[in-house]
Protein backbone atom coordinates (compact mmCIF):
# COMPACT_ATOMS: atom_id res chain seq x y z
CA UNK A 1 0.00 0.00 0.00
CA UNK A 2 1.38 3.38 -0.98
CA UNK A 3 -0.27 4.96 2.05
CA UNK A 4 1.92 2.84 4.30
CA UNK A 5 5.10 3.98 2.54
CA UNK A 6 4.04 7.59 2.93
CA UNK A 7 3.18 7.14 6.61
CA UNK A 8 6.58 5.60 7.24
CA UNK A 9 8.15 8.69 5.62
CA UNK A 10 6.27 10.81 8.14
CA UNK A 11 7.81 8.72 10.94
CA UNK A 12 5.06 6.22 11.73
CA UNK A 13 6.12 2.87 13.19
CA UNK A 14 7.17 0.62 10.31
CA UNK A 15 6.62 -2.55 12.38
CA UNK A 16 3.02 -1.64 13.10
CA UNK A 17 2.32 -0.71 9.50
CA UNK A 18 4.00 -3.87 8.22
CA UNK A 19 1.62 -5.81 10.45
CA UNK A 20 -1.42 -4.16 8.86
CA UNK A 21 -0.02 -4.75 5.42
CA UNK A 22 0.55 -8.37 6.41
CA UNK A 23 -3.02 -9.08 7.46
CA UNK A 24 -4.74 -6.76 4.98
CA UNK A 25 -5.40 -9.38 2.31
CA UNK A 26 -7.04 -11.71 4.85
CA UNK A 27 -9.49 -9.12 6.15
CA UNK A 28 -13.10 -8.95 4.97
CA UNK A 29 -13.92 -6.17 2.50
CA UNK A 30 -15.56 -3.96 5.15
CA UNK A 31 -12.61 -4.45 7.50
CA UNK A 32 -10.20 -3.60 4.70
CA UNK A 33 -12.05 -0.43 3.93
CA UNK A 34 -12.18 0.49 7.62
CA UNK A 35 -8.45 0.13 8.05
CA UNK A 36 -7.70 1.76 4.69
CA UNK A 37 -9.79 4.81 5.64
CA UNK A 38 -8.14 5.00 9.02
CA UNK A 39 -4.64 5.02 7.49
CA UNK A 40 -5.74 7.53 4.87
CA UNK A 41 -7.16 9.78 7.58
CA UNK A 42 -3.85 9.65 9.43
CA UNK A 43 -1.95 10.54 6.27
CA UNK A 44 -4.26 13.51 5.65
CA UNK A 45 -3.58 14.79 9.16
CA UNK A 46 0.17 14.61 8.51
CA UNK A 47 -0.23 16.47 5.23
CA UNK A 48 -2.31 19.33 6.72
Amino acid at each position, binding site marked *: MRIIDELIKFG*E*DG*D*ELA*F*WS*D*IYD*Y*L*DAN*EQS*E*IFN*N*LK*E*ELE*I*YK*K
Partner: protein
Amino acid sequence: MEKAPEIEENSDDQITDGSLSIKNATSADLPSMTGAMANEAYTLEVHKPKAEIDNAKDKPETIYSELKEIQDSKEKERSLEEVRSKRGGILTRILTNKIVSNGLDFVPYVGGVKMLVESIAGTTLHREKLTTKERIIHAAVGASVLAMDVLLPGLGTAGGEGVTIAGKSIPLLEKLAAKTAQKGALRSSKIFERVALFIAEHPKLLQKTEEIAQNRIKSFIRKNRNYREGGEMTSAT
Protein backbone atom coordinates in the same frame (compact mmCIF):
# COMPACT_ATOMS: atom_id res chain seq x y z
CA MET B 1 37.71 75.20 28.00
CA GLU B 2 36.65 71.67 27.26
CA LYS B 3 34.68 71.29 24.03
CA ALA B 4 31.06 70.32 24.64
CA PRO B 5 29.75 67.36 22.68
CA GLU B 6 27.91 68.31 19.48
CA ILE B 7 24.20 67.66 19.43
CA GLU B 8 22.40 66.94 16.18
CA GLU B 9 19.01 65.74 15.17
CA ASN B 10 18.35 62.27 13.75
CA SER B 11 21.74 60.69 13.33
CA ASP B 12 20.75 58.37 10.51
CA ASP B 13 22.67 55.25 11.51
CA GLN B 14 21.52 55.13 15.13
CA ILE B 15 18.28 56.96 15.71
CA THR B 16 15.00 56.28 13.99
CA ASP B 17 12.49 57.69 16.39
CA GLY B 18 13.28 61.41 16.17
CA SER B 19 15.11 61.70 19.52
CA LEU B 20 18.37 63.59 19.78
CA SER B 21 21.69 61.98 19.22
CA ILE B 22 24.94 63.08 20.86
CA LYS B 23 27.81 62.80 18.47
CA ASN B 24 31.33 62.16 19.76
CA ALA B 25 30.14 61.83 23.36
CA THR B 26 32.25 59.64 25.60
CA SER B 27 31.59 58.28 29.04
CA ALA B 28 33.83 61.02 30.41
CA ASP B 29 31.31 63.59 29.14
CA LEU B 30 28.46 62.17 31.17
CA PRO B 31 29.26 63.60 34.62
CA SER B 32 29.41 67.13 33.13
CA MET B 33 25.97 66.82 31.57
CA THR B 34 22.92 67.87 33.46
CA GLY B 35 19.14 67.72 33.11
CA ALA B 36 17.70 66.91 29.68
CA MET B 37 21.14 66.60 28.11
CA ALA B 38 22.19 63.85 30.50
CA ASN B 39 18.89 62.07 29.90
CA GLU B 40 19.48 62.19 26.17
CA ALA B 41 22.93 60.66 26.75
CA TYR B 42 21.35 57.74 28.56
CA THR B 43 18.75 57.46 25.81
CA LEU B 44 21.62 57.09 23.38
CA GLU B 45 23.01 54.16 25.35
CA VAL B 46 19.82 52.12 25.08
CA HIS B 47 19.23 52.70 21.35
CA LYS B 48 19.78 49.69 19.18
CA PRO B 49 20.67 49.38 15.47
CA LYS B 50 17.73 49.94 13.08
CA ALA B 51 17.40 46.26 12.16
CA GLU B 52 16.95 45.24 15.80
CA ILE B 53 14.35 47.91 16.33
CA ASP B 54 12.45 46.62 13.31
CA ASN B 55 12.55 43.10 14.77
CA ALA B 56 11.28 44.37 18.07
CA LYS B 57 8.34 46.00 16.31
CA ASP B 58 7.50 42.61 14.78
CA LYS B 59 7.82 40.78 18.08
CA PRO B 60 4.13 40.52 19.02
CA GLU B 61 3.46 39.04 15.60
CA THR B 62 6.38 36.60 15.98
CA ILE B 63 5.17 35.45 19.40
CA TYR B 64 1.67 35.05 18.05
CA SER B 65 2.80 32.93 15.12
CA GLU B 66 5.06 30.82 17.37
CA LEU B 67 2.18 30.20 19.76
CA LYS B 68 -0.10 29.38 16.86
CA GLU B 69 2.48 26.92 15.56
CA ILE B 70 2.69 25.18 18.98
CA GLN B 71 -1.09 25.08 19.23
CA ASP B 72 -1.42 23.65 15.70
CA SER B 73 1.18 21.01 16.40
CA LYS B 74 -0.57 19.97 19.64
CA GLU B 75 -3.87 19.83 17.80
CA LYS B 76 -2.26 17.71 15.09
CA GLU B 77 -0.78 15.33 17.68
CA ARG B 78 -4.21 14.97 19.32
CA SER B 79 -5.81 14.12 15.98
CA LEU B 80 -3.06 11.61 15.21
CA GLU B 81 -3.48 10.01 18.63
CA GLU B 82 -7.20 9.70 18.07
CA VAL B 83 -6.85 8.05 14.68
CA ARG B 84 -4.17 5.64 16.00
CA SER B 85 -6.34 4.75 18.94
CA LYS B 86 -9.24 4.02 16.58
CA ARG B 87 -6.93 1.65 14.67
CA GLY B 88 -6.21 -0.29 17.87
CA GLY B 89 -9.96 -0.50 18.45
CA ILE B 90 -10.49 -1.79 14.92
CA LEU B 91 -8.08 -4.66 15.55
CA THR B 92 -9.72 -5.53 18.87
CA ARG B 93 -13.09 -5.65 17.14
CA ILE B 94 -11.79 -7.67 14.18
CA LEU B 95 -10.21 -10.31 16.43
CA THR B 96 -13.21 -10.51 18.76
CA ASN B 97 -15.60 -10.86 15.81
CA LYS B 98 -13.45 -13.56 14.23
CA ILE B 99 -13.62 -15.58 17.44
CA VAL B 100 -17.35 -15.17 17.80
CA SER B 101 -18.40 -15.32 14.14
CA ASN B 102 -16.42 -18.47 13.50
CA GLY B 103 -18.63 -20.32 15.89
CA LEU B 104 -15.99 -20.57 18.56
CA ASP B 105 -18.54 -19.36 21.01
CA PHE B 106 -22.24 -18.70 20.90
CA VAL B 107 -23.20 -18.28 24.52
CA PRO B 108 -24.41 -14.94 25.83
CA TYR B 109 -21.70 -14.48 28.45
CA VAL B 110 -19.23 -13.65 25.71
CA GLY B 111 -20.61 -10.10 25.92
CA GLY B 112 -19.18 -9.76 29.40
CA VAL B 113 -15.77 -11.04 28.45
CA LYS B 114 -15.79 -8.67 25.48
CA MET B 115 -15.97 -5.89 28.04
CA LEU B 116 -12.87 -7.33 29.65
CA VAL B 117 -11.15 -7.59 26.25
CA GLU B 118 -11.88 -3.94 25.49
CA SER B 119 -10.61 -2.91 28.88
CA ILE B 120 -7.33 -4.76 28.26
CA ALA B 121 -7.03 -3.22 24.80
CA GLY B 122 -7.13 0.33 26.09
CA THR B 123 -5.25 0.10 29.37
CA THR B 124 -1.72 0.75 30.54
CA LEU B 125 -0.17 0.12 33.94
CA HIS B 126 0.79 3.73 34.60
CA ARG B 127 -1.65 5.66 32.42
CA GLU B 128 1.05 6.29 29.85
CA LYS B 129 0.15 6.60 26.19
CA LEU B 130 0.08 3.38 24.21
CA THR B 131 2.26 3.22 21.14
CA THR B 132 0.70 1.86 17.96
CA LYS B 133 2.73 -1.34 18.39
CA GLU B 134 1.48 -1.76 21.94
CA ARG B 135 -2.09 -1.31 20.73
CA ILE B 136 -1.67 -4.34 18.47
CA ILE B 137 -0.25 -6.34 21.37
CA HIS B 138 -3.02 -5.24 23.72
CA ALA B 139 -5.66 -6.22 21.14
CA ALA B 140 -3.91 -9.57 20.67
CA VAL B 141 -3.70 -10.31 24.39
CA GLY B 142 -7.34 -9.25 24.77
CA ALA B 143 -8.27 -11.74 22.06
CA SER B 144 -6.20 -14.39 23.85
CA VAL B 145 -8.17 -13.79 27.04
CA LEU B 146 -11.40 -14.25 25.13
CA ALA B 147 -9.93 -17.39 23.57
CA MET B 148 -8.89 -18.60 27.00
CA ASP B 149 -12.46 -18.21 28.16
CA VAL B 150 -13.74 -20.01 25.08
CA LEU B 151 -11.12 -22.74 24.80
CA LEU B 152 -10.23 -23.27 28.43
CA PRO B 153 -13.38 -22.25 30.32
CA GLY B 154 -12.51 -21.40 33.87
CA LEU B 155 -12.59 -17.66 34.26
CA GLY B 156 -16.09 -17.78 35.62
CA THR B 157 -15.65 -20.77 37.88
CA ALA B 158 -14.67 -20.97 41.52
CA GLY B 159 -11.00 -21.34 40.54
CA GLY B 160 -11.26 -18.50 38.04
CA GLU B 161 -9.09 -16.13 40.01
CA GLY B 162 -6.23 -18.58 39.70
CA VAL B 163 -6.37 -18.47 35.92
CA THR B 164 -3.26 -16.92 34.48
CA ILE B 165 -2.62 -15.48 31.05
CA ALA B 166 1.16 -15.13 31.47
CA GLY B 167 2.94 -16.95 28.65
CA LYS B 168 -0.33 -18.18 27.18
CA SER B 169 -1.17 -15.51 24.60
CA ILE B 170 0.91 -16.99 21.77
CA PRO B 171 -0.27 -20.62 22.25
CA LEU B 172 -3.87 -19.41 22.56
CA LEU B 173 -3.67 -17.42 19.32
CA GLU B 174 -2.06 -20.42 17.63
CA LYS B 175 -4.93 -22.56 18.90
CA LEU B 176 -7.39 -20.04 17.49
CA ALA B 177 -5.56 -20.22 14.15
CA ALA B 178 -5.81 -24.03 14.18
CA LYS B 179 -9.49 -24.08 15.24
CA THR B 180 -10.56 -21.57 12.60
CA ALA B 181 -8.57 -23.45 9.94
CA GLN B 182 -10.37 -26.67 10.96
CA LYS B 183 -13.66 -24.86 10.45
CA GLY B 184 -12.54 -23.78 6.99
CA ALA B 185 -12.18 -20.12 7.93
CA LEU B 186 -8.74 -19.90 6.40
CA ARG B 187 -8.54 -16.13 6.20
CA SER B 188 -9.38 -15.78 9.89
CA SER B 189 -6.86 -18.48 10.64
CA LYS B 190 -4.14 -16.52 8.79
CA ILE B 191 -4.98 -13.40 10.80
CA PHE B 192 -4.59 -15.22 14.14
CA GLU B 193 -1.37 -16.73 12.87
CA ARG B 194 0.03 -13.31 11.86
CA VAL B 195 -1.04 -11.76 15.17
CA ALA B 196 0.73 -14.56 17.07
CA LEU B 197 3.87 -13.98 15.01
CA PHE B 198 3.78 -10.25 15.66
CA ILE B 199 3.49 -10.56 19.42
CA ALA B 200 6.19 -13.23 19.49
CA GLU B 201 8.54 -10.65 17.99
CA HIS B 202 8.00 -8.30 20.94
CA PRO B 203 8.46 -10.43 24.08
CA LYS B 204 9.00 -7.55 26.54
CA LEU B 205 5.90 -5.67 25.45
CA LEU B 206 3.97 -8.92 25.47
CA GLN B 207 5.02 -9.71 29.03
CA LYS B 208 4.03 -6.22 30.18
CA THR B 209 0.66 -6.51 28.45
CA GLU B 210 0.01 -9.94 29.95
CA GLU B 211 0.62 -8.45 33.40
CA ILE B 212 -1.95 -5.76 32.67
CA ALA B 213 -4.36 -8.41 31.40
CA GLN B 214 -3.82 -10.49 34.54
CA ASN B 215 -4.78 -7.55 36.77
CA ARG B 216 -7.84 -6.94 34.65
CA ILE B 217 -8.87 -10.61 34.75
CA LYS B 218 -8.65 -10.67 38.56
CA SER B 219 -10.69 -7.51 38.88
CA PHE B 220 -13.23 -8.80 36.34
CA ILE B 221 -13.63 -12.13 38.12
CA ARG B 222 -14.06 -10.48 41.51
CA LYS B 223 -16.87 -8.36 40.12
CA ASN B 224 -18.48 -10.88 37.77
CA ARG B 225 -18.04 -14.24 39.46
CA ASN B 226 -21.28 -15.56 38.09
CA TYR B 227 -21.21 -14.05 34.63
CA ARG B 228 -21.65 -17.45 32.99
CA GLU B 229 -24.93 -17.84 34.79
CA GLY B 230 -26.19 -14.60 33.27
CA GLY B 231 -25.39 -12.29 36.18
CA GLU B 232 -25.09 -8.59 35.57
CA MET B 233 -21.77 -7.58 34.04
CA THR B 234 -19.50 -4.94 35.48
CA SER B 235 -16.49 -3.52 33.71
CA ALA B 236 -13.08 -4.77 34.86
CA THR B 237 -11.94 -1.21 35.59
